[in-house]
């Protein structure tokens, strides 16, 4: 199997889709530069730079999708989604339902997310839980190149809107422009297996809403998405040394959520720790506990999340974002070891 970078895998799949289906287009701020290869290949009719007008171009992408094309609309950073929330909350998410499922919105909103490079809480949020709260949106958060490609392919061909998250510590070009800026004097905690990894010889769409077991274990389930999966793997290794067998699950999607597989894991381990770079309150971690309870399970529960606005200072930021130390400590705490 060939190796590929996280961002390269996404670009590879989009190129394939654009080649096969002329209805696939890209629009967004700076896309002629951010997607230079695709711009060179498919031209400005299909890779369309926009002004800084998120509310207008995302709103337009919704109806463009309704009228028969498959736009990939880029919101540079998910923090900026606030500017265009109406198009997403009241339109993209609701049109299929309101039309009696007779009119779909095959739209992908691609957006960069996440912290760990000192840019503070207006540029480093995750917000997937906030968006997953809204019925009608698929929420995809890949953690490695193979999933990034396979999930982008299914996102492009999904009938309903998908918000597709690309973590800045995994997508090399984002970290280069926003974190290092060409400097060699700064460093970041980038998980190698997320940055680069094996991808299939031939891209196939991965189903939305299927979690992936990364590591089998019996004592506790560590479940996460995106960068949190890598932090969980690191923590699982430390727990292993302490004689605790942790299972690591990568949800890959928040909507749909693979509750069946999650249930199977927690039935086995009777303990679950949710690792979420998004906010703690009213989010993914609370939702998972509620769903498991609704399914009649009893289990030990804990969560390691971002609990407050992400501070600018790298030192403070490191304390706020989930990391392996916090995961290990919380796991030991809930297992009372």
């Amino acid at each position, binding site marked *: 199997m060939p190796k590929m970078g996280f961002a390269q895998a996404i670009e590879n799949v989009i190129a394939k889709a654009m080649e096969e289906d002329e209805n696939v287009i890209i629009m967004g*701020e700076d896309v*002629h530069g951010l997607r230079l290869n695709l711009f060179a290949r498919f031209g400005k009719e299909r890779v369309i730079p926009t*002004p*800084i007008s998120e509310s207008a171009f995302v709103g337009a992408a919704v109806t463009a999708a309704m009228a028969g094309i498959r736009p990939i609309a880029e919101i540079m950073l998910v923090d900026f989604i606030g*500017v265009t929330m109406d198009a997403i909350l009241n339109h993209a998410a609701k049109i299929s339902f309101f039309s009696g499922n007779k009119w779909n919105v095959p739209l992908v909103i691609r957006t960069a997310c996440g912290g760990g490079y*000192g840019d503070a809480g207006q*540029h480093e949020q995750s917000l997937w839980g906030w968006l997953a709260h809204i019925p009608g949106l698929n929420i995809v958060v890949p953690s490695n190149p193979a999933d990034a490609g396979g999930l982008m392919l299914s996102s492009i061909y999904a009938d309903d809107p998908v918000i597709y998250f690309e973590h800045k510590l995994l997508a090399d070009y984002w970290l280069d422009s926003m974190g290092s800026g060409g400097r060699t004097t700064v460093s970041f905690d980038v998980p190698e297996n997320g940055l680069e990894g094996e991808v299939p010889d031939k891209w196939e769409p991965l189903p939305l809403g299927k979690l992936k077991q990364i590591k089998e274990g019996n004592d506790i389930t560590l479940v996460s998405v995106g960068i949190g999966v890598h932090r969980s793997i690191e923590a699982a290794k430390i727990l292993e040394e302490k004689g605790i067998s942790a299972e690591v699950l990568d949800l890959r999607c928040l909507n749909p959520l693979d509750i069946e597989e999650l249930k199977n894991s927690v039935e086995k381990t009777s303990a679950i720790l949710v690792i979420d770079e998004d906010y703690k309150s009213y989010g993914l971690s609370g939702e998972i506990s509620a769903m498991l309870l609704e399914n009649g399970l009893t289990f030990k529960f804990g969560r390691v999340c971002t609990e407050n606005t992400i501070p600018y200072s790298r*030192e403070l930021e490191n304390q706020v974002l989930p990391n392996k130390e916090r995961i290990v400590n919380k796991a030991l705490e809930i297992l009372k070891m």
Partner: protein
Amino acid sequence: MAEFEIWQLYRKMLYSRLFENAVKDLWDKGMISGEMHLGTGEEAIIAGVVSQLEQGDAIAVDHRGTSSFIIRGIEPTLLLLEFLGHSKGLCAGKGGHMHLFSKEHLIASSGIVGASGPAATGFALALNYKKERNIAVAFFGEGAINQGMMLESLNLASIWKLPVLFVCKDNNWAVSTITNEVTGGNLIDRAKGFGIEGYEVDGTDVEAVWKVTNEAISKIRNNDGPQFIHARCVHTEGHFLGDPLLRYNRNPNLLAEVANSLKKYAGKSLDEILLLLRKIGGQTKKKVDPIVIIEKKLKNDPDRLKQIEEEVTKEIDQVVNKTLEIFDGGMNNA
């Protein structure tokens, strides 16, 4: 009413420039994290406007606000400590350069493009409501003029006849997009469309900026409602430090590499790409530097120029040293 004092303006501009050069230095060393949007190239606009504000006037700035904070008189050591993420920084190390706030000076920033429009409008609403004679200034780039919230603010300020000075700092680049190519009509006409008088000015000439601002502010203080200034300038450091476009441009090998990597596609738009890359090249070659321009105007008194430069250099050195001393003393983030 403010008096035009070119030497004072020069000192302010130079102070801002040398302060931001020091910021660049610390950023290069890896002591400042994340992005860094410098206001180098904007000094004539910021100094020409901010120097005419009175106590109690409010300022809303964008992600490029350091220069406004410096020229408004916020303690520079506090700013530098903030950029180092120190607990004794202006915002306790929690905000960083895009999220600077000084309640005492009524100046607030935002990293969201366009947000300074509604921010200044709201400041003006409160000042007006309290029957103060004060005004609010919105600083924003021309990229922000295509944000709905900015256009809505122009309308609000107009219908409510609020004391807002909208200052558009136009370098013709919306991050990495040439603004002309994504902006319909012209900005003065836009302002007029909302019933707001607009002034076109060379934003690299502090004297010109000062004069139109003086006229605009006196109208605002006379209850004539909001005014709009469109000032052109150049960002010599691109959108932010380490701007990938400038890195390509400054390194011919890298630029050739990019162009070559695109050749394999030989798409119909290759010419467009090369044109774009050339345009990017043009961005930095055209170095219109407001500091150089004002120094030319003042060249008849070289001794005074030299003296100011020496004084300001020394002051900035002291700020940096004091900051690093506190920084080396450790954080107090517990």
